[in-house]
């Protein structure tokens, strides 16, 4: 094992790349070789948009030097050589390249090891992402990696593992919130010799990129969790279905699998305990519907991603018609920590009915957008004011959309509802994937819903009629309203369409495509009626057509 004294991370977000991060990376590497430091210093990249407020573009590209936790930025490509010479060769911090501290978020405290700067941040899923070199298995092992797998294989029976997961109260993080331990029990109990573990990494819900951060920042965590799941349910093979757009995450997973096999954490006779498990990575080719578990399985088998009729469920008839466990990336990422620290520890996080943490992606009209991990049960107001650092200057919260396109639209009045599965269910809203799109007073509800419906009419797979035609008709109707051509009857039509699509659509896509319309009519009916009756868009967003103006 190679022991290095320092690790350099270079920011690799789009803005940094635009400003020459790739040249910077090359210059750093060249300088390290020139000073013959390549055996002592490793260089890697990190998506800093998850950790820092990168919208302040004047700190990019950034260079972070560990273990000193010194943060430089902006660093011009031409500064690379100087930085290596001063900091890594001579051991002097380059003061004039340091990132001005006032521009950084509270995460600098976390980087320096001063926990508690950001009181509510508790990291389980993102424990290591951004802290270790994702391409190094040694660093993963040093941060408790594969410890849970070792414990499971040497001290626990499969039944113990399932009991622990069930006791932890972990619920599926893909959106539906089904109890994970119970699902594992179903697959273990299903008849059949051959079973599969499938990791759903087809993260396509607009506004959601938490799984990307997990896979890019800590790929071994998912391999460890899938192997534990395989042991628990009696499977010897697993698939990671990753969306085709996530090229970097795909490479990191492939690399991690090779490393894990080399170290004996994957493949034959893991830990010398006689358990075999193998994992394949399978890239999708761009289809939102493949996030639905039966569509995902169809796509894995080389078909169009069209959801199957259920029942039978994948737990008994999944991949190649064998019992299959399908879990989301974030759900799996919780598993090693639960088995390492116990169910009691996990239950101490979050709320009694929804234990644990949740990873959210915040974006829209807030000062900080990115990924955060917070205990279940915090409120939207807290998210906006603590993590989002408040609304942008001049912006007032009008509504938030949770959980991507199929999530709920929450008016500002509901921002004090605790965000956990139970409270949300009671309030009639869905937590979904954890995307939080924060919109201010300049957002027109009709325009927003039109954009969401455009997404659904495009992504509907076309297999069942209610969804294929329903999404199209819904879009046309809302588009007419946005052009000033709407009638009051249109609202009646939408109302009945909601009921039909919810009742008869084959899968979750069609059933939830109507949620934004329902929330629009429930919370913002006056604004919609203004488009129809007054012939004006209160926010001035919608462009009324000539025809519309004449009709008035």
């Amino acid at each position: 094992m190679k022991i290095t004294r320092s690790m350099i991370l270079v920011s690799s977000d789009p803005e940094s790349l635009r400003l020459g991060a790739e040249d910077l990376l090359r210059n750093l590497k060249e300088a390290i070789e020139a000073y013959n430091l390549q055996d002592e210093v490793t260089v890697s990249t990190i998506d800093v948009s998850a950790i820092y407020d990168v919208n302040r573009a004047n700190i990019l590209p950034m260079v972070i030097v560990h273990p000193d936790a010194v943060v430089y930025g902006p660093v011009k490509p031409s500064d690379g050589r100087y930085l290596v010479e001063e900091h890594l060769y001579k051991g002097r911090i380059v003061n004039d390249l340091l990132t001005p501290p006032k521009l950084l978020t509270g995460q600098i405290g976390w980087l320096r090891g001063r926990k508690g700067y950001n009181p509510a941040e508790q990291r389980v899923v993102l424990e290591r992402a951004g802290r270790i070199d994702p391409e190094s298995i040694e660093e993963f092992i040093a941060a408790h990696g594969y410890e849970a797998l070792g414990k499971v294989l040497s001290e626990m029976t499969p039944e113990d593992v399932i009991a622990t997961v069930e006791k932890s109260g972990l619920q599926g993080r893909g959106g539906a919130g089904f109890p994970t331990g119970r699902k594992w029990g179903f697959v273990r109990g299903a008849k059949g010799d051959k079973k599969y573990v499938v990791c759903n990494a087809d993260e396509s819900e607009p506004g959601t990129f938490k799984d990307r951060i997990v896979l890019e920042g800590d790929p071994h965590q998912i391999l460890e969790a899938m192997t534990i799941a395989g042991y628990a349910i009696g499977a010897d093979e697993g698939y990671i279905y990753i969306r085709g757009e996530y090229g970097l995450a795909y490479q990191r997973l492939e690399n991690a699998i090779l490393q894990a096999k080399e170290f004996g954490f994957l493949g034959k006779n893991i830990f010398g305990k006689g358990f075999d498990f193998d994992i394949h990575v399978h890239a999708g080719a761009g289809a939102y519907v493949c996030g639905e578990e039966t569509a995902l399985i169809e796509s894995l088998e080389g078909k169009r991603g069209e959801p199957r009729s259920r029942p039978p469920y994948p737990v008994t008839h999944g991949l190649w018609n064998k019992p299959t466990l399908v879990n989301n990336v974030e759900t799996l990422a919780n598993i090693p920590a639960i088995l390492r620290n116990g169910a009691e520890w996990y239950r101490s996080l979050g709320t009694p009915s929804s234990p644990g943490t949740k990873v959210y992606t915040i974006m829209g009209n807030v000062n900080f957008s990115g990924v955060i991990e917070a205990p279940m049960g915090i409120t939207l107001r807290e998210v906006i004011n603590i993590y989002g650092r408040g609304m942008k200057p001049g912006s007032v919260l009008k509504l938030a959309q949770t959980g991507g396109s199929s999530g709920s639209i929450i008016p500002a009045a509901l921002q004090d509802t605790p965000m956990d599965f139970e409270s949300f269910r009671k309030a009639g809203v869905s937590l979904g994937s954890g995307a939080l799109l924060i919109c201010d007073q300049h957002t027109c509800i009709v325009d927003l819903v039109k954009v969401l419906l455009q997404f659904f009419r495009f992504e509907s797979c076309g297999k069942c009629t209610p969804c294929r035609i329903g999404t199209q008709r819904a879009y046309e109707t809302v588009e007419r309203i946005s052009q000033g051509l709407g009638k009051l009857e249109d609202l009646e039509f939408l109302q009945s369409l909601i009921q039909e699509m919810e009742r008869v659509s084959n899968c979750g896509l069609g059933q939830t495509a109507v949620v934004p319309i329902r929330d629009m009519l429930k919370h913002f009916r006056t604004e919609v009626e203004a488009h129809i009756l007054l012939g004006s868009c209160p926010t001035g967003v919608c462009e009324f057509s000539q025809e519309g103006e004449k009709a008035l």
Partner: protein
Amino acid sequence: MSSLISESEIAAAVQAAVEKHGKNHDALIPILSEVNRAFGYVPGEAIREIRKHLYDPANRTYVAEGQLYALASFYDMLSTKPRGRHVIKFCENAPCHVVGGKAIWDTLRQRLNLENGETTPDFKWTLVTTSCIGLCSVGPVILIDDDIYGNLTPEQIPDILERYE
């Protein structure tokens, strides 16, 4: 574009993809993706070529051309039509929309004189919309080939387009 690709090039690309991913049905999408990456789209000749490779009565594997076309037309990252040398993908989803996506889209359409899905006559540019690509913290976002541009304003568009030959 289509006529510039020789049959032997297509045969070689399909051969390589089949060797890499195998002949099982679960390899179909990865094979089509490789072909799409090589030529920017899935040519009809490639579909015929893949069918030939996967015809193996001994192992009961057989795939129809229609089945391959069904896949190529279903998945968004695969194209059945030739595309320009550079493909611009514009994220049209809500997170990019509420932070000024529409102005970017209008600028792109006007500068290139293209509508969604169209290609310039010189086959330099293809303009398409895409669903969320998971870069929402830096919206509005466009992708040109594999290059990502985030935090965009309409004023930046001409400069960015200039960079491509």
